[in-house]
């Protein structure tokens, strides 16, 4: 019975590894952030924008959050890490799991991305272009789903902006996932090997968008 149920789980894993499955998973985590009001959202987003540019701070935050989620008390911290943690702690200094869970999931997704991508995400946040980049990555993952085959995917021109090219943040974000964006006829050649990184990028953008003002 154990082996049969394990086998069944493997089958389910295969069928959920497509865009619909990803949307469900990310949606489930993002739902945890729904109750947050505007002020802590802004504080979280501001702090995340800063730690994205500092790998050590990002690692420290991940570590402290992990410890907190294992039941430990969260000591007050300085800087952006402290600002983020203050949004997630209860008066008892224990983490509020419903909020800390999604943030920990976001940090897990960020850990799959490269340092270059972290800096670019911070740039995109600062430029206020999160929504366009999110919709671009969503469109790419949706069109290439179920992700097992190489194929050319056209990108919606309205999401590319006037500077679509090798220096554009969204271009580099995709390139760093192992994809090859093209300029002339805006498209990306989908590579099945890029699915983990692109899915993680999608999750990061989705959760950051959830924290952003509409």
């Amino acid at each position, binding site marked *: 019975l154990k082996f049969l149920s394990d086998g069944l789980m493997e089958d389910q894993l295969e069928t959920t590894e497509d865009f619909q499955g990803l949307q469900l998973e990310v949606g489930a*985590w993002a739902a945890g952030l729904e109750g947050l009001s505007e002020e802590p959202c802004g504080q979280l987003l501001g702090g995340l924008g800063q730690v994205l540019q500092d790998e050590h701070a990002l690692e420290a935050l991940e570590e402290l959050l992990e410890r907190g989620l294992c039941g430990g008390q969260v000591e007050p911290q300085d800087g952006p890490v402290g600002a983020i943690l203050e949004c997630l702690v209860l008066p008892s200094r224990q983490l509020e799991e419903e909020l800390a869970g999604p943030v920990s999931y976001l940090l897990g997704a960020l850990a799959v991305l490269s340092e270059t991508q972290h800096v670019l995400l911070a740039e995109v946040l600062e430029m206020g272009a999160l929504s366009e980049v999110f919709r671009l990555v969503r469109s790419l993952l949706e069109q290439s789903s179920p992700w097992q085959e190489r194929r050319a995917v056209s990108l919606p021109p309205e999401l590319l902006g*006037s500077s*679509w090219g090798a220096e554009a943040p969204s271009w580099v974000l995709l390139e760093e996932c192992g994809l090859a964006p093209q*300029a002339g006829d805006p498209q990306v050649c989908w590579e099945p090997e890029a699915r983990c990184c692109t899915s*993680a990028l999608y999750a990061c953008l989705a959760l950051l968008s959830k924290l952003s003002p509409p």
Partner: protein
Amino acid sequence: SAFERVVKSVVQELDHSQELTPVNSLWSSAGFQPYCLLGRRPSSSWFWRPRYKCVSLSLRDILEPDAPEPAVEQDSPFHFHETMDGQLKGSVKLAVPGQGKISGKAAGSSSSSASVNVCMLRVAPSTWEAMRRERRLRKPEHKILQQLRHRGDDVFVVTEVLQMQKEVEITQTHKQEGSGQFALPGAICLQGKGQGHMSRKKTVTIPSGTILAFRVAQLIIDPDWDILLFPNKKQRTFSGPLQAGRTGPGSQPEPSLRVSDQ
């Protein structure tokens, strides 16, 4: 980064089955030597696995006696040379009703060249078997292992690496040119043109001995140690009551299947 590009390129060429995990930074490369231990958090996603993290321990640090690790086997070296010279061209036209037009062209070229000597170092499967038979886990358990156990992380040992044989300097150049014009209608007609170019050069030196990619086996610690040369998604390193791993929103810890149960 230039280092990541070289690693990706070499790994793609030498490892079609994608069994090797590329090292993502030159800085962390030293922590992926054969016999080094790596930690990994349980995944909170179906779609990606967390990265392996160096835990600053080698297998000798957790085993008795404190003897050096057995030597590793070395394959004959590969020579890898790649020159990339690419041209990129693009144009964009935007017309917003009632607001004007913007048009632009961009052309870019990038080039890079890499010539590297690499070799595979691996621990022979028979070595693992002998070590497992002859060496026991140190008591008390190493502090770092205790921490990993408490966090519910899994522990892996590096079994095979792709290593640089000679120091190499990689240079990447990127050139871009662009021009554009815009016209904004209204009471005052505004038109303009712009042109520019940019050149970027990046050089990185990768020292001899740098690990570019690695392969792992999973450690099983309960109560003594074992090794899974083909890690099983559902097998966990520690399966004691202290394990505190999380896998998803509202999820239960996965029941672990032990080798002896099979």
